[in-house]
């Protein structure tokens, strides 16, 4: 059962990943990405990380993909088709990617992983909540706090960049426009 599910999910992930990066229609690419993300959350379920799977679905699939689609709508025509990129670029990139992948896989397969002997923790919401607020070893309150600063900063950053203001006067002389 598990292996069937794994095969299913991983096949979906790989296929849709490749489609995402090769599709010539941008909206379709976004949709393929959504499929990848959903399949991934499936894997998370499989690994018993229900919380994370949920986060993946809501934040990633729900948040980011929607954001992406919005921006696509803002910047492109839906049916717009890209001219495919130069074959040289594709070939070289493919070589680089495949080399990297082979290198990594060989190295990974070369390594003998050994599992810990300590007892596994039952991952449930209680544990997650406790760990998230724990200041001790294997506690994550500090990153939790820091990420809040990051989110704040990112919000401000996005606003700063995207804020639309009429270009009133531009103090810089012409020379710098180029």
């Amino acid at each position, binding site marked *: 059962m598990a292996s069937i599910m794994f095969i299913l999910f991983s096949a979906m992930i790989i296929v849709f990943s490749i489609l995402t990066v090769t599709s010539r229609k941008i909206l379709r690419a976004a949709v393929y990405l959504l499929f990848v993300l959903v399949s991934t959350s499936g894997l998370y379920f499989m690994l018993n990380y229900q919380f994370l799977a949920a986060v993946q679905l809501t934040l990633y699939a729900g948040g980011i993909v929607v954001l992406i689609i919005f921006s696509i709508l803002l910047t492109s025509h839906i049916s717009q088709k890209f001219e495919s990129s130069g074959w040289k670029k594709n070939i070289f990139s493919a070589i680089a990617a495949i080399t990297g992948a082979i*290198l*990594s896989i060989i*190295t*990974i397969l*070369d*390594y003998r*992983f050994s599992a*810990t002997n300590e007892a596994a923790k039952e991952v449930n919401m209680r544990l997650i909540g406790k760990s998230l607020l*724990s*200041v*001790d*070893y*294997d*506690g*994550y*309150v*500090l*990153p939790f706090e*820091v*990420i809040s*600063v*990051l989110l*704040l*900063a*990112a919000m*401000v*950053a*996005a*606003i*700063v*960049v995207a*804020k639309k*203001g009429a*270009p*009133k*006067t*531009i*103090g*810089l*002389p012409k*020379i*710098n*426009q180029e």
Partner: protein
Amino acid sequence: MSPGTFLIMRHELLLIAAALSVLIAEIFWNPEKKKSISLFSIILFGVVTIIGFLPSPAGALFGGMYISSGARLLMKNILNIGVLLVFIQSVTWLKKEENVEKISEYFLLLISTVVGMNFMISAGHFLIFYIGIELATIPIAALAAYDRYRNKSAEAGIKLILSSALSSGILLYGLSMIYGTTGTLYFTEVTKLFGNNNLQILGFIFFFAGMAFKISIVPFHLWTADVYEGSPVNITSYLSVISKGAAVFILIIILFTVFPVIIATWQKTIFVTSILTMTIANLFAIRQQNLKRFLAFSSISQAGYILLGIIGGNQLGMASVIYYILVYIFSNLGAFGVVTAISNATGKENIDDYNGLYQTNPKLSLIMTLALFSLAGIPPVAGFFGKFFLFTAAAQKGYYLLVLIAVLNTIISLFYYLLVVKAMFIIKSENPIKKFRSDFPTRFALGICVAGIVITGFASIIFEAIRNLSFGV
């Protein structure tokens, strides 16, 4: 955890408080008086900087996730000094009409990146390190795109953030391998469990590539020039000095404390990359016309020299790197300060525009010369001492060949620094940049830089203090 232990985290807490104060000020401040937010932020940050120098206990918090030690505090303080200088240098620019409404955002974002850097430096766990590094990068990308009406600024922003995303991806992949082979991400535990097998080296190399991106080490440097050129000058100086300095600091900490086991590997890595970095960057720098771009390549080559301090893995090396960063902050900010002042006054950023500058603005020319000489490592200014110690650190471990290549590279770098000096002093110009007088903050910041450039070298106490806090593998 008692409240007292928060003292250990003083830097970060104060900075967060400062960031929030700026935010609150932005909300409640009279819109007419927005310009004074600059002053407010600078004073606030100045206070933070000063408090940072007060003696502080060392120790680990959050189960070892947060580590504070003398060296790390020192690094934070050095960064604070640099950030303060950048802030002061930005005042003139922020007064411009198109920037006025975003002053508080500017400070807020920069302070939050400083928070990120401080957490990064104090990290005892790769998670904190990762979040720190992202916090130190993402807002900067926004700031690089700060000039919303300039194409180049937007281009710089996108190039920075996408490259950075790619590099964090690779870094994360490396980290995942480290996690997979050791089962932990706490620094102290990784050290113990780290071996010398292929997968771990793969993880390390990917991790190193990510870090090398931040420090702009060849071949991970290509974003640097474009981003530096496109960003507003103050952001460029911030990127070249503070971001780079912070990344160097954490790299040296991690290499020394987390990866001592594979010292042979990272020494080889650094050997190769530092030669590449110095040489390629210098070769590129020769041809540059835009001063920001020019300084970008210069700063890449400086990174190559800095690697010489790291490669030895000794206490002297760490001391020389920290010292060099300090010197580099003063020197580079001196150079960028002049570029900023001239850019603000005239909008000119090309080397050709500087022809005959000495005739009209002798003081700026002299400061620029001093800063460039310091970058080139010419005595008696501090850069000379900095470079000398870096080379000494590498030579101590027998890397004479590397030192030789490095010093030969300094000749190339001297060549292009002298090109700027030539423009300012020697070449005559039909219409040189008019004589102008900078406002107080600019002069103040430049004054501090000059003092730093001159004093840091001679005052051996600074180096000795740094050395006492440093440690080797």
